């Protein structure tokens, strides 16, 4: 490559496995620090909302969770697509590792949304375009994961869940633009690239810090999960950074 970095090197499992292992503590610790800062700002610096009172503070988990649910789905579909195109096992494993975290954030977006809907709309749930399409996203994650567990052959499971993930990516713009395309009960975007933010600066800052924290958290847990998957699927324990397990085993003998 012109940049002098051999990117292909990082796509080999032997390099990727220890590299991921070294990166996890960094992503995790920055995520924890940012969550602390974001929560402090969200609860102690950001002012009370003049319309929604203190209920609006749910935004500091709701919006980051909802963004992550959509973002992770797209990233999962991209890895699935790369896996299909290049027949790269590691790409399929990345897609496999993303699904549970994406599903968790989708569940949290729906749950925190219900917690916000009840006091502001008077209903935990409405069959509104935004809510319904987000619920469908949860089913899509479930589908991707169930398809994998229902097919014994790992290669076939990779392909089947990749096709499912790729087809379903069409729902992500539907979720995102649902508040514009349909007359929904769900409020419009608080932050827009076209119009900027409609929120107080400290509210916006707290929300963005929480989003970055959730993003780094996701990277940490996904890297941890993909390492597990690599060991589980390859059965060849050759990727350990130092052969610590080997040394330990030999010492006992």
């Amino acid at each position: 490559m012109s940049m002098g970095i051999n990117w292909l090197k990082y796509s080999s499992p032997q390099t990727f496995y220890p590299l991921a292992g070294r990166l996890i503590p960094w992503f995790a610790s920055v995520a924890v620090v940012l969550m602390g800062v974001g929560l402090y700002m969200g609860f102690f610096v950001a002012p009370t909302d003049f319309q929604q009172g203190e209920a609006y503070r749910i935004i500091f988990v709701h919006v980051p969770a909802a963004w992550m649910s959509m973002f992770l789905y797209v990233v999962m579909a991209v890895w699935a697509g790369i896996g299909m195109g290049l027949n790269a096992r590691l790409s399929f494993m990345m897609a496999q590792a993303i699904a549970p975290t994406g599903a968790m954030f989708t569940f949290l977006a729906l749950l925190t949304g219900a917690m916000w809907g009840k006091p502001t709309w008077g209903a935990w749930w409405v069959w509104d375009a935004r809510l319904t399409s987000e619920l469908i996203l949860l089913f899509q994650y479930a589908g991707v994961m169930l398809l994998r567990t229902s097919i014994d052959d790992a290669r076939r499971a990779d392909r089947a869940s990749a096709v499912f993930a790729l087809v379903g990516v069409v729902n992500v713009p539907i979720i995102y633009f649902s508040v514009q395309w349909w007359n929904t009960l769900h409020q419009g975007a608080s932050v827009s690239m076209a119009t900027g933010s409609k929120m107080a600066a400290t509210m916006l800052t707290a929300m963005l810090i929480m989003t970055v924290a959730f993003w780094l958290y996701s990277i940490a847990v996904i890297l941890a999960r993909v390492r597990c998957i690599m060991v589980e699927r390859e059965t060849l324990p050759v990727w350990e950074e130092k052969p610590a397990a080997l040394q330990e085993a030999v010492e006992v003998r």
Partner: protein
Amino acid sequence: MQWGSASEFFAMGGYGLYVWTSFVATALCMVWEVLALWRRRAATRAEQRAALVGGTDETTA
């Protein structure tokens, strides 16, 4: 800061149930995910060790 006391903070202007359920549920999900991965990693380590020793016999490891 807009909180006069700790009880005022926990009350969240009457929305305490909704606000705290949201934050606690999110925290529990994340903690659960991390713990589940921790256990999964321990299991894969045990598997690796067993494979390196050349058997799945627990007594050798």
